């Protein structure tokens, strides 16, 4: 039971709006702009949104509240990292070691996030200077390969690509903001960058929605068709080898539909063109759609990153966390559904056609398709620069939050000052990020390895630990009491039931499905790359292992958090 004499966290946010913007900024990232629109369109608008909002209400919001409650309680007791939070709430040293995962995973994610920030900054610069004014998809693919060095290991450092400079700027910007601290660094940056991000997105949205029919010779490539492909619950698409290549417009007569079919047949000679009807009911019966929608919510809200827990630990004891959490989630959804959902797919469909937007991977859409879209768009140089600048801002607000748990860990367990923590965290990140940017061959092996183990597997495990801690160790009733303290909104009735039964079930289903697909069903390349001793997979993971051993050693030898601090322990300096 919390006591009235519990100490306040030594550092707290300046305002609730600042807290909300920092958390929203942390959640808004590549997934909002590049992953969600593609998935929603692929699974047919309406059905996907039903599953998506169900997952938002039953998985996303409750899990975020769980993380906020654990974080704030831990902050009140003097702990700001996952390791200390788990220890302080469970009163058990075992949990302290399990909590290291909540520091290690964001650190691993941060290593490749820095590299991706270098991409966005480089693309922003290249669009502004006209270096990306190219003509066809082959040229854009070639630019991407040269810029990122994806042709071979170490290609980014051969002198042909400016990426190392942008990459360096991204790392320095992050470390500088972390050095400035919670209020003067993170809160200050998010307070202006998140509104700028929203305004920039609105400007681009207006441009996209006023595109009309850019090419009169391609009457079916227009904004209406793009919005239809994104949002229509029922649609008829033409598929070649399982990939959507065209959508039959709603207003098309049977004769026009046949013409479109024949044109697609001519575009793909010798291949079978399948006409498929996607409907709302059929979509809702597809279990893959529900799992994909829940997975999108899970990653979009940055659940399990450890960042929300750390940010929540800086909230004062009697301040609201329930409303701030809900507002941050709503802001993330507004950007994802309300802006990105209206912008990316309609732009790609109206300028390049359905085939360009359908089935593109996150990076394929962002760094191959969209530069081509902006090159074809009137005023595209300005809007392209704005878009990649926006992506850079979104990425930085996320990456500073990703690194903060490590800073908190070093400060509380190793007793380092903020400057010392920045130096140590910076060195760890630079070594890992260099490995990611060096081993770019074989489909960005280092990046995909870290994303698989740290950015996916670990996040599921950490979220499961949150739920076990909240429900079985701390007690749902105690957790909800913490969540309700100072709350400006009443907590929904039945929230305890949802957290106890519904949320864990959904998490178990999406994690089980992910394990089945990636570990048990297929011969996972991520496992075999490690077993084969490929340096692109082995070295980043070996570096993570070294950091894990180092963190375990620091936790083990640290004199802090050996026992639960007494209720009258003075605030941490």
């Amino acid at each position: 039971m919390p006591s009235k004499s519990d100490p306040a966290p030594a550092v707290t946010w300046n305002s609730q709006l600042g807290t909300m913007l920092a958390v929203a900024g942390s959640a808004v990232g590549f997934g909002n702009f590049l992953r969600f629109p593609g998935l929603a369109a692929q699974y047919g608008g309406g059905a996907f949104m039903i599953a998506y909002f169900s997952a938002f209400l039953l998985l996303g919001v409750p899990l975020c509240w769980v993380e906020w409650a654990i974080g704030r309680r831990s902050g009140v007791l003097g702990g700001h990292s996952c390791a200390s939070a788990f220890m302080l709430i469970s009163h058990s040293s075992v949990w302290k070691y399990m909590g290291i995962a909540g520091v290690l995973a964001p650190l691993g994610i941060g290593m490749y996030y820095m590299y991706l920030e270098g991409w966005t900054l480089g693309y922003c610069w290249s669009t502004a200077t006209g270096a990306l004014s190219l003509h066809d998809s082959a040229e854009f693919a070639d630019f991407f390969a040269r810029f990122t060095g994806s042709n071979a290991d170490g290609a980014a450092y051969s002198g042909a690509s400016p990426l190392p400079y942008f990459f360096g700027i991204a790392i320095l910007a992050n470390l500088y903001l972390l050095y400035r601290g919670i209020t003067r660094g993170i809160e200050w940056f998010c307070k202006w960058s998140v509104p700028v991000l929203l305004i920039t997105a609105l400007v681009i949205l207006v441009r996209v929605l006023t595109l009309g029919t850019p090419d009169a010779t391609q009457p079916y490539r227009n904004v209406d068709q793009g919005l239809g492909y994104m949002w229509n619950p029922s649609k008829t698409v033409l598929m070649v080898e399982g990939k959507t290549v065209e959508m039959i417009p709603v207003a098309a007569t049977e004769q026009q539909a046949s013409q479109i079919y024949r044109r697609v047949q001519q575009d793909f000679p010798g291949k079978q063109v399948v006409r498929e009807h996607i409907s709302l009911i059929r979509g809702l019966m597809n279990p893959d759609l529900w799992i994909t929608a829940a997975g999108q919510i899970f990653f979009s809200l940055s659940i399990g990153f450890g960042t929300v827990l750390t940010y929540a630990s800086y909230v004062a004891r009697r301040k609201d966390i329930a409303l701030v959490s809900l507002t941050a989630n709503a802001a993330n959804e507004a950007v994802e559904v309300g802006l990105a959902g209206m912008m990316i797919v309609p732009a790609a469909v109206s300028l390049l056609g359905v085939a360009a937007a359908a089935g593109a991977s996150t990076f394929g859409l962002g760094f191959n398709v969209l530069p081509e879209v902006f090159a074809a768009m009137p005023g595209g140089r300005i809007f392209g620069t704005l878009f990649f600048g926006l992506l850079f801002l979104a990425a930085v607000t996320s990456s500073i939050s990703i690194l903060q748990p490590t800073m908190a860990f070093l400060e509380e367990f190793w007793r380092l000052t903020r400057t010392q923590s920045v130096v140590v965290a910076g060195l760890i990140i630079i070594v890992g990020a260099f490995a990611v940017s060096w081993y770019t061959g074989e489909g960005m092996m280092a990046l995909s390895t870290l994303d698989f183990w740290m950015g996916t597997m670990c996040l599921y495990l950490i979220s499961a630990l949150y739920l076990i801690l909240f429900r079985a160790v701390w007690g749902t009733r105690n957790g909800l009491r913490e969540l309700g303290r100072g709350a400006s909104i009443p907590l929904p009735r039945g929230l305890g039931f949802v957290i106890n039964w519904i949320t864990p079930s959904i998490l178990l289903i999406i994690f089980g499905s992910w394990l089945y697909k990636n570990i048990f069903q297929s011969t996972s390349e991520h496992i075999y790359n490690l077993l084969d001793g490929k340096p692109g997979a082995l070295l980043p993971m070996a570096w993570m292992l070294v950091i894990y051993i180092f963190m375990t050693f620091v936790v083990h030898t640290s004199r802090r958090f050996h026992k639960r601090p007494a209720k009258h322990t003075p605030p941490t300096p």
Partner: protein
Amino acid sequence: MTLAGIITMILSIGFVWGLLALCVRRLLREPSHSSARKKAKS
């Protein structure tokens, strides 16, 4: 774009922006932590 598509779009976007507007309105109604601090200092 079909009528069902327009309804889906409006409902989805209305839900997220509506939720955000409600939350922000409620949040701004709360006394600001920073202004409370400034008042306390002065």
